[in-house]
């Protein structure tokens, strides 16, 4: 019985490896900040107090966390099937663009139809784009990592081509000063395709919340999708099959599970999550597609998934942490008049990923070592 207690202690350690990685990364960040010649305590204090010290900060953090939850789930879900879907970027491009297109094309539809239609289109677009590497993997065995990356670049070119087709005409204000559209963007989606922001809800509840804050209903969609991902993976027959394929394709095949079918399905579900990024960025925020709308969200999803240990709950928490760093980093950048580049946060994220991976392995080994003496 004594041994069981010891074992539990290490299981807890295993669960909190991400925390260790975050602390190490923050220490590395502190060293960098000192090298730049700034005070790390001041920097971190500013970062956290602005990000989570008040309701406006929290709103901004959740707004930024929303797309990361989607792309984090993208990576996590595919990972459970043994797939490395690092094409979240491309899948969200396609899903989001198509949703935008629906939003500015079927303008006569009422919100009750148009909003679900846009959401479904976003998911379908992402699923479609992810199906291609899925099918290639299932039918020919081509490794999905390279294909999904290539699909990112193809998606980027394709949407660039499409955005020029649906380019908005210059506004009067721009014409007046003779400005050109530096970054091409489409016309705006219909009012009926827009997701409400959270401000009216807070207002209704008599909670003081700034009206300009961009956090919107998409955040709840993200949470719902996280719950859905959990339910599919651990409570359904489909999840049983997907995880079986992920752990052991040979045993799955032996157990009458179609490996190819599950690979394609897992990729499509995973891609659908990525496509849903459009609910936040377009339907809840910009209301139109801008070619450079989101850079790196797909890749940050990888970091979020790894930090969240590929579990939906972990993904939500990791996305919020990364959003805090992102938003806080931007604030710090302004506060230090640019002396602390906001890219410091990108470096911290990468350090977190590396240490999460290493500390995971170290703890695994520690546990095994401990068990030797049991």
């Amino acid at each position, binding site marked *: 019985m004594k041994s069981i207690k010891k074992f539990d202690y290490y299981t807890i350690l295993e669960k909190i490896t991400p925390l260790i990685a975050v602390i190490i990364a923050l220490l590395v960040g502190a060293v960098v900040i000192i090298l730049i010649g700034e005070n790390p305590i001041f920097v971190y204090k500013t970062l956290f107090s602005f990000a989570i010290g008040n309701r406006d900060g929290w709103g901004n953090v959740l707004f930024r966390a929303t797309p990361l939850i989607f792309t984090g789930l993208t990576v996590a879900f595919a990972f459970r099937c043994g797939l490395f879907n690092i094409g979240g970027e491309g899948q969200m491009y396609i899903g989001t663009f198509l949703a935008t297109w629906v939003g500015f094309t079927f303008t006569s539809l009422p919100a009750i139809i148009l909003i679900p239609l846009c959401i479904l289109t976003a998911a379908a677009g992402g699923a479609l784009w992810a199906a291609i590497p899925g099918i290639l993997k299932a039918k020919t065995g081509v490794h999905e990592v390279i294909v999904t990356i290539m699909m990112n670049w193809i998606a980027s070119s394709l949407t660039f081509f499409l955005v020029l087709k649906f380019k908005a005409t210059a506004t009067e204000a721009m014409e007046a000063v003779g400005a050109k559209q530096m970054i091409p963007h489409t016309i705006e989606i219909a009012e009926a395709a827009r997701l409400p922001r959270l401000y009216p809800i807070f207002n209704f509840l008599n909670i003081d919340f700034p009206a300009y804050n961009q956090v919107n209903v998409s955040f709840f969609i993200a949470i719902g999708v996280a719950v859905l991902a959990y*339910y599919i993976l651990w*409570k*359904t*027959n489909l999840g*049983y*099959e997907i*995880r*079986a394929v992920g*752990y*052991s394709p*040979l*045993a*799955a*095949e*032996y*157990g*009458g*599970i*179609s490996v190819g079918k599950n690979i394609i399905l897992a990729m499509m579900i995973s891609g659908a999550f990525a496509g849903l990024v459009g609910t936040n960025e377009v339907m809840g925020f910009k209301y139109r597609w801008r070619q450079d709308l989101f850079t790196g969200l797909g890749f940050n999803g990888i970091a979020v998934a790894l930090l969240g240990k590929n579990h939906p709950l972990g993904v939500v928490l990791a996305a919020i942490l990364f959003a805090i760093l992102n938003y806080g980093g931007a604030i710090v950048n302004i506060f230090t008049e640019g002396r602390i580049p906001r890219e410091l946060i990108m470096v911290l994220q990468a350090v977190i990923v590396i240490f999460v991976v290493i500390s995971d392995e170290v703890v695994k080994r520690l546990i*095994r*070592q401990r*068990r*030797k*003496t*049991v």
Partner: protein
Amino acid sequence: MPEIALEMKDITKRFPLVVANDKVNFTVYKGEIHALVGENGAGKSTLMSILYGLYLANSGHIFINGKKVNIANPKVAINLKIGMVHQHFMLVPPLTVAENIILGMEPIKNNIFIDMEDATKRVEELSKSMGFKIDPKAKIENISVGVQQRVEIIKVLYRGAEILVMDEPTAVLTPQEVEELFEILKSLKKQGKTIIFITHKLNEVKDLSDRVTVMRKGKVVGVKNTKDTNQEEIASMMVGRKVIFDIEKKPLNLGKTAFKVDKLEALNNKGLPAVKNISFEIKEGEILGFAGVEGNGQTELVEVITGLRSASSGKIFLYDSDITNYSPRNIREDKIAHIPEDRRQRGIISEYTLAENLILGSHYRPPYNKGLSLNFTEINHHAENLIKNYDIRPSDKDNLLKSLSGGNQQKVIVARELYGEPKLLIAAQPTRGLDVGSIEFVHQQILNERDKGKIILLISADLEEIFSLSDRIAVIYEGKIVDVLDPKKTDEKEIGLLMTGSTTNNKLSKVK
């Protein structure tokens, strides 16, 4: 007192969950053939891996020719003139024979390049001196297992080994090849080499060794002069109790012909024919055993029958219904159970719990899958039942399969496959790597199914197993059935010859 070549003192090695060597003392005289015997998992291979520097002992000392040594890695062992032929050959398949032999000790020309000519010459000389015919330029992946073993022996001699460790060298050989190997080892002994011979086959101990050390559960339980002991004594030392060699088999009670394979053909992973025009029938209540050297199409044959590989031509019938090229799921629905040869890769999902593993294959059906989600009440109930009935340990249904011993993992597979009264049971290498207790258990389960009137197809590389279970023996060689024999009217020698493709004129028996 003879001169001592090797002495291992108080060697202890701990692995997660198990103490593989517990204060082991092991002494080998110069110029002897010393058998090291014990069950699977007794710690023989671990001890030899420590001697060869592959594992580091937690405590203990090693003396070579009376001198204390510290063997931190295989390089040290090689320098101490210790050579090891591993159970799984340590040969790199896409490289040539010569390249494999010189690896790590390459002859050099111009200070930079490998001198391949010199290497080829030295390999040729060595194989000539042993009387082997080996092409140094052949790739390992293109030569037979028997020849590969000879390459391993040359590899060891190339490094000037004086102490040779042979880890279960006969496991992959036919009876005839075993005889040849024994001649080789005896001639090496004559040359003054010291040989340590790991095995769990007791007749080999008798035929070959001068002395024998017996291990059980990580400890040495006895050292004997081979001529002063007998198989029964060694066996009871190995297992710790008296062993019944023959299982009781009830008289044959055949039903109607129920399973039929007709002119079946299939390709292997490389796209080459692996199953060639195979036809056979099995009756209810009968065990048909397939004997053969591994890699002669057995794996592919089983895969075709179970839907894991498609047949290129031919038919498979179960009770008159054509099940050729059914999907694995359809095959399971037709009540065909399969104990797969690759237990770890195919048979279980080691990261799944017992409960999850016990529904693999029927997970999508009621009562386990109901409506939109899995029914965990049923799944857990099912698991608790099977764990109790088959005495699976530890008995927690939420344990991951990877934390179970090989024997208990196999129990999980057997429990799952036999649940729901299958009509046909296919058992491929069902006891490989198991301890005696588990072997007895699995054999008893297979015989129970036979006595219940089920159709049983057994595949095994272990001739003893084939003989003790089968009602008829089919010998498979290069994808073809070369003969079908009655086990009561044949012997291991005849089967062994057939397994290597040579047909005998003086057949003891022939059954249809």
